[in-house]
């Protein structure tokens, strides 16, 4: 019956992990809600720094990736659907494939690579330098000063980056469509507008909240789990990346199953 013990231990370990994440997320949100004027003045610069690093500094990378994704998707579609008049579906195809699915996931992957790693490494280093303990010892709540701005900054940045990625993909897609098939802008834009609605915009926002929460909370969790040694930092960064990727993919699968399944 050793396998039952192994299975039980794995389930217990997962439940403990999920509980820890939920606790950390609750602390971050609670910290955010309890910010008063004085504390907000201290935390807002941290939030701005997170938005600048995750959002502003990542725009060109994300836009470039979106542009390539949009162009490649259409080139592949034209190659595979040559006999079906693919020009009629250019905008629809891009909207369905990129705006609804690949865009949010690709933006999340890039944010995990750029910012999730940075958050985990930064908090791990702060842990080793007794910086987190120094905050606690002197009445500065780490959930307000460290967790809340990283959570909010990641969600806000991710939402903005998803929009940038979608826009870049659409523009690149249009460029390919215009070059290959001579599709006029008005026709292309009409297809896009017919294909997407307000609910798609809301879904992008919802995905930004869910994916951004997974990325920020897990990056903080693993970063803060560093205990004694510099060698733990690359290990926790790897764990944060893997956990964030897996959770984003699973969450996206659940979204697809619920909405289109």
């Amino acid at each position, binding site marked *: 019956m050793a396998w039952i013990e192994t299975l039980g231990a794995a389930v217990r370990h997962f439940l403990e992990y999920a509980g820890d994440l939920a606790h950390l997320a609750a602390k971050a949100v609670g910290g955010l809600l309890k910010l008063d004027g004085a504390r907000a003045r*201290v935390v807002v610069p941290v939030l701005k720094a997170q938005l600048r690093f995750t959002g502003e500094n990542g725009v060109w990378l994300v836009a470039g990736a979106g542009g390539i994704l949009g162009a490649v998707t259409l080139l592949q579609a034209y190659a595979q659907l040559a006999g079906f008049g693919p020009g009629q579906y250019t905008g629809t195809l891009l909207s369905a494939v990129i705006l609804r699915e690949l865009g949010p996931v690709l933006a999340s992957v890039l944010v995990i690579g750029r910012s999730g790693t940075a958050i985990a490494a930064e908090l791990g280093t702060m842990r080793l330098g007794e910086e987190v303990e*120094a905050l606690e010892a*002197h009445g500065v709540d780490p959930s307000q000063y460290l967790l809340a701005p990283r959570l909010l900054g990641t969600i806000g940045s991710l939402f903005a980056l998803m929009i940038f990625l979608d826009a870049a993909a659409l523009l690149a897609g249009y460029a390919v469509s215009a070059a290959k098939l001579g599709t006029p802008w008005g026709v292309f834009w009409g297809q896009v507008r017919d294909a997407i609605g307000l609910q798609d915009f809301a879904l992008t926002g919802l995905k930004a909240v869910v994916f951004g929460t997974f990325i920020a909370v897990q990056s903080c969790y693993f970063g803060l789990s560093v205990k004694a040694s510099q060698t733990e930092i690359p290990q926790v960064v790897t764990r944060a990346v893997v956990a964030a990727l897996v959770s984003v993919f699973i969450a996206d699968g659940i979204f697809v199953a619920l909405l289109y399944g």
Partner: protein
Amino acid sequence: MDEGLIASGLALSAPDGRVILRDASLEIPSGGRVWIEGPPGSGKRALLKVIAGLLRPEQGEVRLGGICLWPGDGAMALRGRLRTGFAFAQGGLLSNQTLRDNLSLPLRFAGRSAVEVEGVLDRLGLSEMADLRPHALGARARKLAQLGRIELLQPEAVFLSEPLEDLEGPDLALAEALIQGWSADPARLIVAAAETADARVLPGARRVRLEAGRIQPIEGAP
């Protein structure tokens, strides 16, 4: 602070499994002063963190000023109820903030004025380094900055980990004067940890020794 510090039955292990605390207990009345002595690696820094609510013990209870730290949220349970100050043996300053911001952050977070920061920096001879970040400072400046942060906060309970390490000459005198100034307040609880106690800094302080995970009084010491 009506009640002092009560720690009982503390147990703690290092990540490698080495026992740091084993059924360790310590009681300090309000306004009490205690030196925790012990050889390097004995766990006195860890003990200091546990009783300050910064490190969760595996077992045991800690109450400070009548507020339960462990089991519980540690130092976060003290927010808005009791101020503490902690001088770390190493680290303890935010690496992405200047010295000035490190000193003013707890004040600004509590909604208090930070006008005294410049005066304290000046007193400690740190004014010229105020815009530098900790990595650009020497050990003495970092140590004094931590003491300066406590001076600004004027907390009800002070925890000092190797407070005089790396200091000599005028810097040592400055640090001693600060700590003696804090001990002039009869209600303030002060706990310091070092390899050997310095009786001049905390006159009349009770001396205990951490050995094999247990806290024991030092024979012949007050």
